């Protein structure tokens, strides 16, 4: 077998129990079976109230590779990492890990709040398997990396959560593992620290560490990983391209979480109620990038409303604001008569990249909101264009000039 494969996961499954009482009782049963030398997980069937948290997952990871692990909450990511780390036993399958495993799973687990940062560095390093001499040697690096030198002698209970994590990461990152497991570790720190962590991870990777990176942050995964596994209800799909993985991921989450269809419609407060659809033209064809989009708003008011400014906000499915269009900037305001009325807004060359977007907006008068909806409409941009590079949130139209050989 090639010595370059550091992680081998073969048909690994893990079941969990929904009910606490049952879970404890199953724990007792498993304990008995283990002590009788029986196989964990029984015959592979589920007991009442159990479900597969990780279901038949296979993958391999080579030296210097970084694998992103994405999926919604409860998809089994952490469970898989915990099996890889040897914390819990798989119920089926086999895991083979080569070399020293470092896990950035719970940064600062084992910190005692009363003790100082300095004391906790020694304790935490010992938990991770450092000897005192190794820690002595790396102490200055750890403190420097954490940027906490002025607080190192105060009790960590006075630290902020970000400082806590910074110290935890600095200790763990100075450990040189062959396999590194990172679970949402960077979510708490500030941006500058997250960047430094990502740099450290890629440094380790260049030195031959295999990295498994779990994060909900698309940008961080794109920064760190080369390919990706998408977990959904315990099932894993491996994607060689991050874009495919994230398209599939967004397809999972956009329908259920961020873009909840039931939220669309009239807003329930304010005198103006609005509803919108966004389409290519009157024949309801699906929009492509850089076409004119027609946004039709149905408005309903309880009284005559004069001098209203219309505001439209374009969001990505991930909650990133792309653009705000205000009618007031165009010198336009609306007078809505009592009852129903229609407004149409044409967006020339809607430069959004293929994907799903959310349109929010409403009416304002002198800053006061007179009707607003977080979910005015969902915008679907079809990915059928040849020029689409597969990345980014905008699709800019380019013309190329210069010497060509065609």
């Amino acid at each position, binding site marked *: 077998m090639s010595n370059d494969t550091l992680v081998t996961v073969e048909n690994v499954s893990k079941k969990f129990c929904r009910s606490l009482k049952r879970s404890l009782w199953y724990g007792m049963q498993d304990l008995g079976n*283990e002590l009788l*030398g029986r196989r964990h997980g029984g015959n592979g069937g589920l007991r009442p109230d159990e479900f597969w948290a990780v279901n038949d997952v296979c993958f391999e990871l080579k030296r210097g590779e970084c694998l992103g692990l994405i999926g919604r909450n409860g998809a089994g990511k952490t469970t898989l990492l915990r099996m890889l780390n040897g914390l*819990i036993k798989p119920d089926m399958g086999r895991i083979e890990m080569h070399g020293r495993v470092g896990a950035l799973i719970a940064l600062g687990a084992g910190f005692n709040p009363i003790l100082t940062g300095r004391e906790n560095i020694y304790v935490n390093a*010992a938990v991770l398997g450092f000897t005192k001499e190794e820690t002595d040697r790396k102490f200055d690096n750890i403190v420097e990396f954490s940027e906490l030198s002025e607080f190192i002698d105060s009790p960590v209970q006075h630290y902020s959560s970000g400082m806590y994590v910074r110290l935890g990461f600095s200790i763990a990152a100075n450990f040189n593992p062959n396999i590194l497991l990172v679970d949402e570790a960077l979510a708490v720190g500030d941006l500058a620290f997250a960047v430094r962590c990502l740099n450290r991870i890629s440094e380790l990777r260049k030195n031959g560490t295999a990295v498994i990176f779990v994060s909900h942050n698309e940008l961080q995964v794109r920064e760190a990983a080369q390919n990706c596994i998408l977990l959904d209800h315990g099932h894993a799909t491996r994607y060689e391209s991050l874009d495919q993985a994230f398209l599939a991921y967004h397809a999972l989450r956009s329908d259920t979480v961020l873009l909840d269809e039931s939220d669309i419609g009239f807003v329930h407060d304010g005198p103006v109620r609005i509803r919108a659809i966004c389409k290519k033209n009157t024949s309801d064809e699906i929009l492509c990038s850089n076409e004119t989009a027609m946004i039709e708003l149905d408005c309903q008011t309880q009284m005559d409303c004069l001098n209203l400014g219309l505001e439209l906000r374009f969001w990505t499915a991930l909650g990133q604001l792309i653009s705000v269009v205000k009618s007031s900037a165009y010198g336009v305001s609306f007078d809505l008569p009592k009852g129903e009325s229609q407004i149409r807004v044409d967006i020339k060359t809607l430069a959004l990249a293929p994907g799903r977007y959310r349109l929010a907006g409403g009416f304002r008068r002198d800053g006061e909101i007179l009707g607003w909806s977080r979910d005015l409409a969902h915008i679907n941009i079809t990915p059928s264009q040849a020029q689409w590079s597969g990345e980014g949130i905008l699709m800019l139209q380019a013309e190329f000039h210069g010497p060509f050989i065609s």
Partner: protein
Amino acid sequence: MSRNDNTDQVTVYTPDSSLRDPGQLIGEMFRDLWAGRELAWRLAVRDISAQYRQTALGLVWAFILPLANTAVWLFLNASGIVRMGETVLPYPVYVFTGTMLWAIFMEAANAPLQVTAAAKPMLAKINFPREALIVSGIYQTLFNAGIKIVLLLLAIMVLGVFPNWSLLLFPLAILSLLLAGTALGLLLTPVGMLYADIGKSFPLIMQFLMYLTPVVFAMPASGWAATLFQLNPLTPLILTARDWLTGMAPEYLGYFLGVNLATLALLFVMWIVFRAAMPILIERMSA
């Protein structure tokens, strides 16, 4: 790319029971015990310093409970509410040594469940030699026992009992109390981690055990109580420790040795159980 690493060190995780391969299991147990020595020390230092840093009375907490206990029994005896029976040693010395030694045993028995429960967040997320937890518990008990013993020695000398050469054997008796306590504690830990009932009933069980051991009462001379006291494996441990401390000839030396051998065997078996149970407990504690 660095090749001088330890990637040929392979770890395999399967659903198979760890008891399938006893040779490998025992090898791993001792390897982890060795690997965790530094960690055990760190954890003990961490817990001891944190424990005393946030108290005003500090080290007094190590012996305040047996001290209070002694006071209660001295009062009960002096007021004639409870008759203790004849002891060779002056009763205050008897009851003070008894409660102090019992406190050491109780702390040792309490330690495995307590340290394991306190380390839940760590256990659930970090892979470290689990043996270190138990050893750190033993260190902490030893530290507290040291304070108690110093106080105990001072107190019995004030009360007019002077130890002789057999004091040299006394640490051995303390060690057997510690190991017996740890074995008992390990016995309770796996189920105790799942069901809180164990932890809650622990003080009750210990109270009951104490009255079956010559801690505050003298050995009954006859009757079923005498048989019960004599069969109780804790009796020779407490009596021998007390005899060695106060310079008397130990009566139950043979039984003492037998209990120690049994303790070592039990300790080893419970160590295996603890180790095998860990991944299963961790799975349940955070599910």
